């Protein structure tokens, strides 16, 4: 079979301006605002999510030749052979385990500090040395995983549920509700996220993680909602949905049985990458002094406090920063791998 030219990406003269994405994964008709305030990783996420719902062109999309398999079992077969997926999956598994049981690999108490040992380097039993307050950097880095993973997972769950329900309903029913929702997402996109976090969280006095999660859900749901809306609109035009409608299926049946399973892939990819960005956002807000507050053990707080001693004890900054970077990278890589596996064009 000769190589198929890829379907045209740019709109043809007769088409409305559309499929091309300007900043932050947005086709111009989507709304007045591009979603760039969340940073490059979120742009990457929305772009990857959006590219998943492009219609198939040519014989690639005409269906399976051999034993029929669902998109998901196909994707799973691909993923099991993908080293990137395996490595990032193992890293995430490790993170989850140590955030559930940090005492498995760190026997000390993260809040036990000895000022006499402040800023000392690596020693036997304390491989990462001590920070500016004389706390063991290794123990604190291990215990810091719990907060980061909790914030990331809770924020992502909240954002994904709220965003996909609102966006999905707007995409399915269209009309006035859709128009209102599009304008509301525009409003949220117009506020740069770090700025919104500073303003909102500076007035909250609670020292638990819930205000941070609440803020992320509040400012994060429009991202997922836009992706879910686009995905549902694309799926709705498929023949099998029209067939179901012709057979008299109710709205709820069409949504749950036909549209949701076929429209959920972009949401999952974006949510996975977003998880990484939320962890990074939590650290940024803690670094600015408005996110989590001591005595909570968090990488952001540790990096922030270590930045004062950067000349004399850089190790106290490098270890939590490294752990943070590896964590975020693992989630982005995982999302990337899942996207590749779910993209039928790459088959």
């Amino acid at each position, binding site marked *: 079979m000769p190589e198929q030219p890829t379907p045209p990406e740019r709109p043809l003269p007769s088409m409305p301006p559309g499929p*091309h994405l300007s900043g932050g994964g947005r086709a111009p008709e989507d709304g*007045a605002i591009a979603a760039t*305030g969340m940073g490059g990783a979120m742009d990457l996420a929305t772009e990857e999510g959006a590219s998943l719902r492009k219609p198939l062109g040519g014989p690639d999309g005409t269906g399976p030749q051999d034993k029929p398999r669902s998109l998901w079992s196909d994707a799973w077969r691909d993923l099991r052979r993908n080293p990137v997926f395996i490595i990032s999956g193992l890293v995430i598994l490790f993170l989850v385990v140590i955030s559930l049981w940090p005492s498995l690999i760190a026997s000390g108490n993260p809040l036990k500090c000895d000022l006499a040992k402040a800023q000392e380097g690596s020693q036997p039993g304390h491989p990462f040395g001590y920070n500016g307050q004389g706390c063991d950097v290794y123990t604190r880095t291990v215990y810091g995983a719990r907060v980061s993973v909790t914030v990331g997972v809770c924020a992502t769950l909240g954002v994904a549920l709220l965003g996909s329900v609102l966006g999905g309903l707007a995409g399915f029913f269209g009309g006035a509700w859709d128009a209102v929702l599009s304008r509301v997402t525009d409003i949220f996109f117009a*506020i740069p996220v770090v700025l919104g976090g500073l*303003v909102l969280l500076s007035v909250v006095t609670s020292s638990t993680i819930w205000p941070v999660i609440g803020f992320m859900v509040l400012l994060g749901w429009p991202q997922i909602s836009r992706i879910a809306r686009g995905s549902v609109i694309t799926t709705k035009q498929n023949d099998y949905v029209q067939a179901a409608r012709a057979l008299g299926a109710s709205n709820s049946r069409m949504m749950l049985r036909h549209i949701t399973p076929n429209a959920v892939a972009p949401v999952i990819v974006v949510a996975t990458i977003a998880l990484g960005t939320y962890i990074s956002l939590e650290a940024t807000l803690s670094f600015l002094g408005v996110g989590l507050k001591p005595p909570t053990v968090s990488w952001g707080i540790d990096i922030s406090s270590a930045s004062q001693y950067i000349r004399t004890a850089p190790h106290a900054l490098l270890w939590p920063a490294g752990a943070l970077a590896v964590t975020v990278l693992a989630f982005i890589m995982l999302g990337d791998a899942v996207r590749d596996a779910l993209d039928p064009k790459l088959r």
Partner: protein
Amino acid sequence: MGRYVIRRLLQMIPVFIGATLLIFLMVNVMGDPIAGLCGDRQCDPATATQLRKEFGLDKPVWQQYATYMGNVFTGDFGTAFNGQEVTELMSSAFPVTVRLTIVAVLFEVVIGITLGVVTGLRRGRPVDTGVLLVTLVVISVPTFVTGLLLQLLLGVKWGWISPSVSSEAPFDELIVPGLVLASVSLAYVTRLTRTSIAENRRADYVRTAVAKGLPRRRVITRHLLRNSLIPVVTFIGTDIGALMGGAIVTERIFNIHGVGFQLYQGILRQNTQTVVGFVTVLVLVFLVANLLVDLLYAVLDPRIRYA
């Protein structure tokens, strides 16, 4: 085109009102605007009541918002905690942040597009895989970590730059902060250019240009690059607004007295006027940048017509 611009301008009005109202509510309802005026101590109740009356804080919130917006449109942004006009703070802060943003955008354009073209033309080769991996790493390291590391290495260890920027903030001192600010978008621009180039390389017009016997250099610069840069240009355009708002972290690390610095001070000292004023201007910049980008889109790609 004219109708499209008008429609977009009308669309911007609710977004502007919504976004500023959201910030206004966050600051005024959840926080206490009076608390900041008394410093760290509790305000005397009688004084607090008098101050509330004086500033009109006893009126309903929507009325406060309407009064504030009315003042803003006549150019009165109120006064900051130290009695300085907020507009005065803006006139000293915005030029610095604009310079920082220009440096950042230059980095995005020069390095991002170059890397994107190089990798897009060599898709699947080691260079491509390497650069892609590096961009993922850059994207996943939070900006404040990149900033602190560069400050440590270049500023403290090797002494190439001064670790903090002076208050005049000339262009040459803003190079490293600009790179830090741009880093994440830079990586994204690289990926975007790469995808775009790799897709368009198989387009018919490129094949035609090659078949005509044009030199490779001309095919790439005049035919391939020009068409592939459309999404990149639009991304960079919308990114300008995001960069200005996102400069808080960079400005804090390198002690740059720009918009982010003033906003941070305003938030720390619970100065509502500064915060709401700066955010209002940033939201406006962001909206206008978005509009310009969508118009630019039609200019760059003549196949797109806005009805």
